[in-house]
């Protein structure tokens, strides 16, 4: 193990590790908390809940977001739900089962200790959210309702219609607002972090651009918390919000934070298919739909061809001519297999020529049987808003014809490497939620992103950050006139000046689209050595083209969205390359990462535990230099490592 990769996993039995760690962590007294400053970047579930909870504890918090309000963070778009081991359904759920499902769902590439802690605190999240006034769905008796999600056999998902992420984020945002009003948190909306500042190797602040005025500003603190989400938009087309980006994480990486498992990207099976070249964003249809929706393609090629020519409708194809391929291949889990499995199965059918739309890149998600079984009203209560959304976008009603869906990039399991305390390899720098790598291994289960974001923000970081800050309260406030700040600001300014100086002819988006094509073709649902090498070469070429021919109109000192996008695209090039290096190194199929060279005869993913049961943590070695790989071996002491089986 490299020196820097000290995971700080507490010794002892799994169920006692978190308790043990909590008891070891040094406390910071209230009068000392008042002297300490913390920067939180990002206001999604992780960032907002962290900033609110840290402010409540008495720290001085500065919270930054790129949107006009913290409430716009992309957590808001999460639809289906949040998992918690409450066992309210009496279906034999438990902390252990949630832990087990998450480890298994992640294809045995996540840390046992972190995942167990996640499961352990999950119940308290629901308590907290209900107390905040989040209107979760209720049974008629007034008790909380649950539903199922992929990869599990119990009902542990809490939900607020198809807007669970919105409601949870509004809860965290409300908690944040309460602290802003109390003066413990200062909010900086429309600010984008453009660099991390280190002093003597420790994280001490950031350089941020005020997006409304264009001015670069310096902010200092005793610790910096990154909660800026994932890097799915490297692919241009994804279900991420348009402004979601990987830049903050990449800046940390370039300043020395290791980046872990970058190749683990989740491709979500139920998205509305791509309709044309003018599209800039893919829309997710919640996984909860797979509770009652059945996925199929026709058995007969003649039906496929007629569908594509609009000569028949899906509803006219008789039952016996439909191939419910997930139910056929995975009888134990059926339509509720994990996302990576469902996505690959859809790709397999479409590659075999059975795709049901003009592009051949779509399968059906059918509610015909559910509407018959449950009736219109109950289906509407569960999925009404999703049906409306689908109809608005496609002009086709799921009440009459099945939805058409296809996989799309949705979430990135990889992220900044963190130890058990969520601290990165840079002292004083923490990463939460999707921005870190720690809990989902090779594949994230549905309704677990919300759980992790809130677990990290409400219940982990407020405790673990104390261990570091307990040694810092005698340090004065960080001086933003220090030469390290000046140097970082100068570098950012040089980056901006360079972009304006190119004065080329191609737009940022048109180049980003080309990057997206490279990523989707070679670092997408199926990857192989030749393709990945090609991806690295093509990204380098495209990057060179960008620096020769990009056009960034306007000036720095104004609201300038093209400049924002250009700065983010610079970082997406590097992330894309890093993903390809990682995918090339990991010559096994595992979770969302499928190497064509590593599959069974039936075409199922083949993991290689002997050679790859480790976290791949990459260290930045400078511009144009290959990053260096460090390995954190994964040890499974409490769970038996098996081949994932969703068949029986």
């Amino acid at each position, binding site marked *: 193990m490299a020196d820097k990769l000290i995971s700080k996993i507490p010794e002892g039995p799994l169920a006692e590790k978190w308790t043990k760690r909590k008891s070891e962590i040094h406390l910071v007294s209230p009068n000392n908390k008042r002297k300490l400053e913390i920067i939180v970047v990002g206001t999604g579930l992780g960032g907002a809940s962290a900033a609110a909870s840290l402010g*409540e504890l008495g720290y001085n918090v500065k919270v930054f977001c790129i949107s*006009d*309000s913290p409430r716009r963070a*992309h957590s*808001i*778009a999460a639809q289906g739900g949040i998992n918690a081991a*409450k066992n309210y359904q009496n279906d034999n759920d438990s902390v252990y089962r949630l832990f087990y499902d998450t480890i298994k769902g992640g294809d045995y590439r996540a840390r046992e200790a972190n995942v167990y802690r996640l499961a352990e605190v999950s119940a*308290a999240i*629901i*308590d*907290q959210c*209900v*107390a*905040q*006034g989040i*209107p*979760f769905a*209720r049974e*008629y008796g*007034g*008790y909380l309702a649950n539903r199922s999600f992929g990869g599990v056999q119990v009902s542990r998902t809490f939900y*607020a*219609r198809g*807007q669970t*992420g919105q*409601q949870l984020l*509004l809860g965290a945002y*409300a*908690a944040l*607002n309460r602290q802003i*009003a109390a003066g413990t948190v200062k909010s900086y*909306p429309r600010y984008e972090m453009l660099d991390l500042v280190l002093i003597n190797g420790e994280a001490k602040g950031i350089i941020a651009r005020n997006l409304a005025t264009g001015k670069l500003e310096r902010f200092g603190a005793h610790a910096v918390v990154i909660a800026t989400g994932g890097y799915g938009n490297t692919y241009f087309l994804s279900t991420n*919000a*348009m*402004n979601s980006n990987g830049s903050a994480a990449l800046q940390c990486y370039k300043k020395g934070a290791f980046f872990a498992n970058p190749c683990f990207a989740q491709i979500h099976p139920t998205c509305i298919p791509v*309709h*044309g070249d*003018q*599209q*800039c964003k893919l829309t*997710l249809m919640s996984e909860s739909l797979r509770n009652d929706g059945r996925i199929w393609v026709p058995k007969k090629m003649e039906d496929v061809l007629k569908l594509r020519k609009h000569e028949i409708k899906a509803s006219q194809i008789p039952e016996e001519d439909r191939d419910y391929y997930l139910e056929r291949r995975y009888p134990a889990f059926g339509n509720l297999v994990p996302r990576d499995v469902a996505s690959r199965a859809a790709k397999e059918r479409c590659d075999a020529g059975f795709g049901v739309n003009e592009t051949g890149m779509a399968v059906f998600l059918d509610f015909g049987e559910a509407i018959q079984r449950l009736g219109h009203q109950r289906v509407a209560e569960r999925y009404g808003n999703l049906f409306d*959304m689908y109809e*608005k*976008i*496609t*002009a086709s009603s799921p009440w009459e014809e099945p939805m058409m869906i296809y996989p799309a990039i949705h979430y990135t399991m990889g992220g900044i490497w963190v130890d058990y305390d969520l601290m990165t390899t840079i002292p004083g720098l923490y990463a939460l939620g999707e921005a870190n790598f720690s809990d989902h291994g090779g594949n994230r289960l549905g309704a677990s992103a919300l759980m992790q974001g809130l677990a990290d923000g*409400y219940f982990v970081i*407020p405790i673990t950050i104390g261990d570091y800050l307990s040694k810092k309260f005698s340090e004065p406030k960080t001086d933003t006139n220090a030469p390290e700040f000046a140097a970082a600001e100068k570098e950012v300014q040089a980056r901006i000046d360079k972009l304006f100086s190119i*004065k*080329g*002819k191609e*737009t940022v*988006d*048109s180049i980003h689209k080309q990057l997206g094509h490279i990523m989707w073709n070679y670092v997408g649902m199926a990857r192989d050595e030749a393709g990945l090498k090609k991806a690295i070469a093509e990204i380098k070429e495209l990057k060179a083209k960008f620096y020769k021919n990009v*056009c960034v*109109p*306007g000036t720095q000192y*104004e*609201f300038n*969205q093209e400049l924002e996008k250009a700065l983010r695209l610079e970082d997406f090039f590097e992330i894309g390359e890093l993903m390809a290096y990682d995918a090339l190194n990991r010559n096994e199929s595992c979770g969302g990462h499928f190497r064509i060279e590593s599959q069974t005869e039936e075409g199922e993913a083949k993991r290689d535990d002997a050679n790859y049961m480790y976290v791949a943590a990459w260290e930045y070695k400078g511009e144009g230099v290959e990053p260096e790989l460090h390995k954190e071996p994964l040890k499974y002491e409490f769970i038996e490592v098996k081949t994932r089986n969703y068949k029986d």
Partner: protein
Amino acid sequence: MEFNVKIWRQKNAKDKGHFETYHIAGIEEDASFLEMLDILNEQLIREGVDPVAVEKGCKSSGPVSFDHDCREGICGACSLYIDGRAHGPDDHVTTCQLFMRHFKDGATITVEPWRSAAFPVIKDLVVDRGAFDKILQAGGYISVRTGSAQDANNILISHDQAEESMDAAACVGCGACVATCKNGSAMLFVAARVSSLAILPQGRLEAKKRVKAMVAKMDELGFGNCTNTRACEMECPKGISVSHIARLNREFLKAKFSD
């Protein structure tokens, strides 16, 4: 499809602003309104650097700035007053969920920012809605510390109460209600938050304090009064009912008379 798009251009808050009209062709009818604007921006950037276009007198103000993010109708970032309606001609959608098939081929489409004294223009179609954050900071929360909550099922809430609270909580904070209201009132926005919390037992304890603080902040920030025209409800992308304004009024009166 092709369109003439007449767009409000304003450099910054101090600039007076003006309309510019652009022609755009080759738009798919399945393209969203914002995708149409993306394509227009590509065109404007290319024209700005194309010597032939510049020689022909192209004096574009560069790409149009507009707020947007999730493009799924949930983040509330997108705004736009399109042909005289907040979020455009389709009902109950945000602008990002508006599709070009709702427009006639060849039409002239007028696009303006939200017009409200409380939402100053930052640039072009982008406005500052920070006033909404301030209203919520005044009291739009339940004061619960992290970690102090009881078991979730100890608070029983009837199915219908939860649903009604959720109806109000669906507000995305886009500001269409303010932009639509002839008085520039934020009553529907404030009502949505007050009502969603007031319906729930957890929210009752602070109900009086909350409603007074939020209404006072709303007044202070320069939003207008409600005169019951119900325009806000018609244009709300989430269909939030004015019945929540009625509840806000009841809550406010109760709080006032108990002083």
